[in-house]
């Protein structure tokens, strides 16, 4: 029912959309709720528990009833408030929580069973038999109760997150916020003005009042235009500031494209903002609260302030015969404006005694209360109780006002508690609850328009002062300045269910029952009844519910206190908060220079931290990865293999005190290392356990190059920076990560030197380049570094070139190797090769191993201190019963070994208490012809030759194993030196 000549909609632009498949027409500027109401569609949802028919209650983000699902398929979005969703051409809206239809919902039978479904019903009713809870009761209850459902399909929409910075964040663009932004903007401050509505102006757009001689809506539009023209002011409409955080940080959700058809445009649906503000002004307004009475949830019963919004903002009359019920003067305003717009006002019912209205065109009932409502899917009549008894009057809409609750939420996000103000019977913010934030206007308990202008200007002046800026004089606009007078009325006495929390179906009797069962604390009452726990977080019901609780427990409201308001103020989608973090966006991908070549060779890639590395390079007839792996191991043992080892951390260390640093962080000594040599090093944490291992090369007198394992590169770098900055800032030494600067390849196998000598500008031999030598070489004129080190145990080198030459060098090395009967090898072969030599990875040094556990206690130098040395000498870390590194090989019928299995003495039961150790890594060794493994066994070094039982409880594999030395191939190490 549109009313001619009213509203901020564009009547030249009709917009059609669907609701439950039926086509409706509205205008540009409409919300789903205003357009449905204009079409006479009152029924918009079904309630959470009882499936009661529900209509729209409010006109804002606090809406508890009119929750709908927008969109279809993967783009569908549940629990969208019809009151804030703007319509656009083709928008598809569906109702929720009803089957088979909104009009006829079979689950409405719950309403008849309501005597059994009160507060805490599921704690009491479904106790027996116990196992039925998970299998029967809970699934049934979950299906019967609830709101919208997710599509279950991957979310295809784009989301964004962003940072913003400002001097002053103004939250809310009603009269207070506009005045504050104007004052701060004119004074030159960097201002962000955020408002959850599409059109700024707040209640100025909702009322028909005169500001400075023109309609409030026009005045607001003028101010917004002036602000929009200022370079130092950013306007953020459709942006809800959802949370206040430490240090002047705020979270805010901008609904960038929720108001238009956006599929396929690639533009983000929503953006989650993190706003850093030096000062902030909360101008969030206030929310009107209902009065509880029997059947007060019937469609057609609405907030009195919301009725004015529909009338003035959208030109919609929410009914043909409207009754108005309230405990304050604001209800009178609604009756007045409805009558002025030509809508029939059935009665104005004011609970206060002795209220007179001069020249009212409708009956005014003073000292009266509405005590019941009739009509199921649509309000038909209300029952009025006066001193002389009860009588019914016909009404299809009831506008209620129980007073206004300031929106104090954000002032409580840092654990602040609001203060009870008896004058307005509401909580107001406690000053200073959020550092740098001032609450002003209606959210601070000031309800007249002129009062809000004053408060906005005062708050801006104070904020400017704190920012060290001079305020600019501003003329006050003339505006309404009526006093706010009310008499508390929370719940009308009587039989029948009277709703407090519409969204979670919590009634007055539920709160009374909670109090009777001794859930007297407001926090306990909340959890027992679920009041305030729905998506609206009790915006409409909290204060009324605790007033009812206070009454039931014989306490005052201030004494009863409030529950804790936590972020977010309104729901925020996880997709927006985690924007960019879906799929591959979760972790950046790091590619080596040989990545493309590896893919071209069809190598399956495996993740190593953020890196991607080839696991093996399949060839011709090979059907199983093991075949490829065995072949690649053979390349290295018999000819020459090429492997990209660039992912290992490389840290360049320079300065006069570089050697001191290395002596402190490694257990062994590096100051004695000669220039042109490489040494293996072991690094401990300060608590005495192994942190990492790797080689370190001395490239010059004051120049070392450390390598770390791929996984621990970041940790080791941080550790070196800790030592140089926090322990020894007096040392002259600098460390820098050069991992990405160099591409490095292992050239391993008996023919490795032959291969290299075909490429190096000056050939090498065993005398000029012995085992563990390093130095600068030239490769086709390119400066390269050569290290004679071996992870495979073969005669091997690692050659490093600046990363830009990496791809070319890899191709060249692989081609040469293939010509010599070898080729590229991947992670699987690399692992087998190191297992055969007993070399460590983080499967062995897993954070629980000591130098002694891995057989390297002799490396710990007696001549110097090192990180972790003192604590490694603790008795518990020197206990001979600790697990010691051993080799393992299968000796029974089962030939397979698995990593992570437990080891037991042959006769013992395979339970944790009897475990003698575990396997850490296993692999099939083509050289040995069986599986081999590394593991830790108590006193293991003395037990070579003993047999144990390996039990893998997860994979259900058992095998008999023999303990052996952890080196399976070339124990003397002659091959690497040859």
């Amino acid at each position, binding site marked *: 029912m549109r009313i001619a000549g009213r509203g901020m909609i564009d009547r030249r632009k009709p917009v059609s959309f669907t609701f439950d498949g039926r086509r409706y027409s509205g205008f540009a500027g409409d919300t789903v709720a205003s357009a449905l109401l204009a079409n006479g569609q009152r029924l918009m949802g079904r309630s959470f528990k009882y499936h009661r028919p529900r209509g729209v209650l409010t006109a804002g983000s606090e809406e508890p009833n009119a929750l709908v699902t927008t969109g279809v398929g993967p783009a569908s979005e549940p629990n969208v408030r019809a009151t804030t969703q703007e319509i656009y051409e083709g928008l598809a809206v569906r109702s929720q929580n009803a089957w088979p239809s909104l009009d006829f919902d079979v689950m409405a039978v719950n309403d008849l069973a309501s005597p059994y479904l009160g507060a805490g019903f599921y704690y009491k009713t479904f106790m027996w038999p116990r196992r039925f809870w998970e299998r029967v009761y809970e699934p049934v209850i979950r299906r019967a109760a609830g709101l919208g459902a997710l599509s279950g399909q991957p979310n295809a929409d784009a989301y964004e997150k962003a940072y913003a910075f400002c001097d002053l964040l103004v939250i809310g663009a009603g009269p207070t916020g506009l005045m504050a932004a104007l004052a701060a903007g004119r004074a030159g401050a960097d201002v962000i003005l955020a408002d959850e509505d599409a059109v700024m102006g707040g209640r100025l757009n909702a009322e028909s009042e005169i500001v400075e001689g023109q309609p409030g809506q026009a005045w607001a539009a003028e101010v917004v235009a002036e602000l929009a023209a200022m370079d130092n002011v950013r306007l953020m409409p459709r942006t809800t500031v959802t949370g206040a955080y430490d240090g002047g940080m705020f979270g805010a959700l901008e609904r960038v494209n929720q108001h238009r058809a956006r599929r396929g445009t690639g533009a983000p649906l929503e953006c989650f903002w993190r706003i850093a503000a030096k000062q902030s002004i909360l101008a969030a307004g206030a929310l009107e609260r209902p009065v509880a009475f029997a059947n007060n949830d019937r469609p057609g019963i609405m907030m009195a302030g919301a009725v004015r919004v529909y009338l003035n903002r959208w030109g919609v009359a929410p009914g043909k015969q409207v009754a108005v019920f309230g405990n304050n003067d604001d209800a009178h305003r609604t009756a007045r404006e409805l009558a002025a717009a030509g809508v029939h006002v059935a009665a104005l019912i004011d609970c206060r005694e002795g209220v007179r209205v001069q020249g009212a065109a409708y009956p005014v009932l003073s000292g009266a209360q509405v005590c019941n409502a009739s009509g199921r899917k649509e309000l038909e009549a209300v029952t009025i109780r006066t001193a002389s008894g009860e009588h019914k009057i016909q009404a299809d809409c009831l506008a209620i006002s129980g007073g206004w609750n300031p929106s104090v939420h954000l002032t409580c996000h840092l654990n602040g508690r609001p203060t009870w103000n008896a004058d307005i019977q509401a909580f107001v913010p406690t000053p200073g609850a959020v550092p740098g934030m001032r609450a002003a206007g209606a959210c601070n308990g000031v309800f007249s328009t002129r009062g809000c202008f004053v408060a906005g200007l005062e708050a801006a002046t104070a904020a400017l002062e704190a920012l060290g800026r001079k305020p600019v004089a501003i003329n006050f606009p003339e505006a309404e300045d009526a006093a706010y007078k009310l008499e508390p009325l929370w719940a009308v006495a009587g039989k029948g269910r009277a709703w407090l929390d519409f969204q979670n179906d919590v009634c007055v009797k539920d709160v009374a029952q909670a109090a009777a069962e001794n859930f007297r604390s407001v926090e306990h009452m909340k959890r027992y009844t679920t009041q305030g726990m729905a998506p609206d977080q009790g915006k409409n019901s909290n204060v009324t519910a605790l007033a009812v609780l206070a009454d039931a427990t014989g306490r005052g409201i201030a004494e009863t206190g409030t529950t804790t308001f936590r972020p977010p103020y309104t729901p925020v989608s996880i997709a927006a908060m985690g924007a960019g973090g879906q799929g591959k966006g979760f972790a950046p991908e790091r590619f080596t220079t040989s990545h493309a070549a590896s893919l071209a060779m069809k190598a399956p890639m495996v993740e190593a931290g953020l890196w991607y590395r080839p696991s093996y390079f399949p060839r011709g007839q090979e059907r199983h990865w093991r075949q490829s792996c065995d072949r690649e191991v053979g390349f290295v043992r018999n000819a020459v293999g090429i492997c990209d080892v660039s992912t290992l951390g490389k840290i360049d260390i320079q300065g006069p005190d570089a050697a001191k640093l290395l002596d402190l962080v490694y257990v062994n000594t590096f100051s004695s290392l000669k220039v042109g040599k490489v040494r293996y090093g072991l690094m401990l944490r300060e608590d005495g356990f192994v942190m990492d291992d790797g080689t370190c090369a001395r490239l010059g007198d004051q120049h070392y190059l450390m390598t770390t394992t791929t996984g621990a590169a970041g940790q080791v770098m*941080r550790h070196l920076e800790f030592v140089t*900055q926090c322990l020894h800032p007096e040392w002259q030494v600098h460390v820098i990560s050069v991992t990405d600067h160099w591409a490095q390849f292992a050239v391993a196998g008996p023919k490795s030197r032959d291969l290299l000598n075909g490429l190096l500008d000056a050939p090498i031999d065993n005398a000029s380049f012995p085992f563990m030598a390093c130095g600068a070489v030239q490769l086709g004129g390119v400066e390269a570094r050569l290290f004679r080190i071996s992870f495979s145990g073969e005669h091997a080198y690692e050659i490093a070139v600046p990363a830009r030459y990496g791809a070319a060098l890899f191709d060249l090395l692989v081609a040469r190797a293939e010509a010599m009967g070898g080729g590229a090898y991947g992670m699987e072969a690399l692992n087998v090769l190191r297992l055969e030599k007993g070399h460590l990875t983080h499967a062995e040094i897993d954070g629980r191993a000591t130098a002694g556990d891995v057989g390297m206690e002799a490396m710990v130098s007696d001549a110097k201190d090192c990180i972790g040395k003192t604590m490694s000498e603790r008795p518990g870390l020197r206990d001979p019963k600790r697990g010691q590194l051993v080799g393992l090989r299968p000796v029974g019928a089962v030939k397979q070994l698995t990593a992570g299995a437990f080891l037991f003495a042959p006769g013992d039961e395979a339970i944790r208490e009897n475990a003698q150790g575990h396997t850490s890594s296993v692999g099939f060794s083509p050289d040995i012809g069986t599986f081999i493994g590394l593991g830790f066994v108590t006193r293991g070094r003395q037990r070579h030759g003993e047999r144990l039982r390996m039990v893998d409880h997860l994979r259900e594999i058992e095998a008999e194993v023999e303990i052996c030395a952890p080196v399976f191939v070339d124990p003397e190490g002659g091959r690497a030196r040859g």
Partner: protein
Amino acid sequence: MRIECPICGSRDRREFYYQGAAVALDRPAPDAGDAVWDVYLHLRDNPAGETRDLWQHEGGCGAWLVVTRDTVTHAISAVELASDVKRAMA
């Protein structure tokens, strides 16, 4: 939460790595004894009030910082370069 890095300026806390109490700067001598080492490594105060933490500006300049903050109000009262603090301890 934001931290004022003495080198880079005010930055979001996501750029920083949190380590723990700033007592880590005061590494005991190797022969200080078990009790001293135990305190250094394991025993931490849990004050309701001022505390000093080590953070690293890992996503920025790499500087280790000593951050003085209040565990009740979360207010940060001082941010210093750990190297400066350590030098002053000498």
